[in-house]
């Protein structure tokens, strides 16, 4: 047996497949990975510290920049926690708008994941197809709130902008468009022998391991757990909709792919139902004091973001600014398991497994 020297390989922070500024210090023996140490913090902006000097409305745009692929859910995580602490009533129309944009954002986020994941594995075209469809969601958001990525759409007590005339119909048309479109993706990717061989049986996460590392989102659900906060701790209006939580069997990358693809379909179902139930008239802002003083106390609320459980922990001392604001960022939790998954794999699987976790570095580093 030939003895070879181990080699230290620096992957990132500028590498096409680390999805941002993640750095991995990888020790490899040939192409086998012996040890991995993720180095994060390149995008740390101190959101939590900044938030302590800002009032609650001012914090909302900062949340946009954490998980920039799904800013709507981030907005919601914050305003939901504040509303719960203040015991505010949200007008129904605003709540429906929130659900619609959150689910559309989930779809957009999963489409980006699907596209970039296939790009990691070496297929170019699905990326552009995914972006073509995501573009329509971004256009819808653009029309709704004037931004394509950092929406700053939600406010404590409601939403900032009402749906412009015809917007709901456009959203409805988009749902009708995307549902059959999913077949195209499945035709292009799901049955592809190379894709299946690169993902099946790779990066397996057992349920026990997933819970031990507090994974959430699709990362947890592939291992067989049906943990979805929209079902388990329904917030907003999620108890009014019929939808399933896709669950994986093997916990491998292929299941993650199928799970997320199915989640797109389920989100489309929710959007469809929300549009059907959408109230014709109504206000979009509840009765909210001009200065938001959150009563003294402490709260932790979690919502289901596309990446997993996005939690918001607020400690308030009764002022208009939080004493301590902490976000439980799903990517941060999900990334932790990476070294465990990678040891013993080959370099080519590194990219596949890392991509499968679906991290957003803005969120990891916060």
């Amino acid at each position, binding site marked *: 047996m030939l003895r070879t020297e181990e080699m230290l390989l620096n992957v990132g922070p500028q590498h096409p497949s680390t999805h941002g500024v993640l750095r991995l210090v990888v020790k490899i023996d040939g192409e086998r990975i012996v040890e991995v140490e993720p180095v994060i913090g390149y995008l740390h902006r101190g959101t939590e510290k900044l938030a302590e000097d800002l009032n609650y409305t001012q914090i909302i745009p900062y949340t946009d920049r954490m998980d920039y692929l799904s800013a709507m859910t981030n907005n919601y995580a914050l305003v939901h926690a504040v509303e719960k602490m203040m015991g505010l009533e949200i007008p129904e129309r605003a709540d429906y708008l929130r659900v619609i944009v959150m689910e559309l954002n989930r779809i957009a986020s999963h489409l980006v994941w699907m596209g970039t994941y296939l790009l990691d594995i070496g297929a170019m075209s699905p990326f552009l197809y995914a972006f073509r469809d995501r573009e329509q969601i971004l256009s819808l958001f653009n029309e709704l709130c004037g931004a394509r990525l950092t929406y700053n759409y939600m406010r404590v007590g409601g939403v900032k902008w009402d749906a412009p005339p015809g917007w709901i119909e456009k959203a409805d048309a988009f749902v009708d468009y995307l549902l059959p479109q999913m077949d195209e993706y499945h035709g292009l990717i799901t049955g592809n022998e190379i894709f299946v061989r690169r993902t099946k049986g790779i990066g397996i996460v057992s349920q026990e391991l997933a819970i031990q*590392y507090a994974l959430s989102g699709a990362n947890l659900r592939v291992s067989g757990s049906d943990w979805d906060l929209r079902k388990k701790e329904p917030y907003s209006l999620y108890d009014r909709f019929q939808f399933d939580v896709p669950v994986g069997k093997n916990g491998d990358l292929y299941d993650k792919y199928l799970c997320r693809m199915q989640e797109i379909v389920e989100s489309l179902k929710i959007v469809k139902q929300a549009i059907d139930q959408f109230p014709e008239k109504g206000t979009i802002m509840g009765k909210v004091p001009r200065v938001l003083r959150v009563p003294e106390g402490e709260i932790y609320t979690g919502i289901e973001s596309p990446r997993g459980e996005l939690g918001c922990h607020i400690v308030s*001392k009764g002022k208009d600014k939080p004493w301590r604001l902490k976000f439980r960022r799903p990517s941060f939790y999900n*990334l932790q398991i990476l070294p465990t998954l990678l040891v013993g794999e080959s370099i080519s699987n590194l990219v596949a497994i890392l991509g499968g976790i679906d991290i957003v570095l803005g969120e990891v580093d916060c």
Partner: protein
Amino acid sequence: MKSEDEKKEAPRAKARPSKRPVTKKEEVPLEPSPKQPVLDQYVTLIKGAVGEQAVSESHINREAGHLPTIVIRKEDWLATARYLKRSDELSFDYLQSLAGVDYASYFEVVYVLLSMSTLQKVMIKVKAEREEASVPSVSDVWAAANWNEREIFDLFGIEFTDHPHLKRILLPDNWVGYPLRKDYEPLDKEV
């Protein structure tokens, strides 16, 4: 601006503790929380398994959806954590959130635990003094605590004893100070 704020804050901070128990006393007897028996059960179980001294406080956090909240003495925290995870009645196997809080006079490390089998939640708090703050690490109980403890160490300077790899995670290794402490002086005040 800032100094003015601080001046204002100081007397209020003193006034508050005396005010709050009064309102609580008015409310609590009126509508006992539905989670009160659950909390009592947790407290008895922990006291039975770890010791009477382990639980220093407990209450129901009403704003957070009647979340049972238990303050554990930091010396008993590791044993309590192991018990919470492994006992069959509780089996809090999922670390939902881990946050550090600086209360200006002491630190608090807040754990939100969840049991995947019973779907029960509990908030555990462990207090640490400000000088040479340290809390036992629970990263071998919940693997998810590993990076979170590093983050709290990074931003608060709370030492987690027996942590396998305690070093800064978000900030560069040569950073001076702990930004999320309330007395943190930023290098450049304009920022």
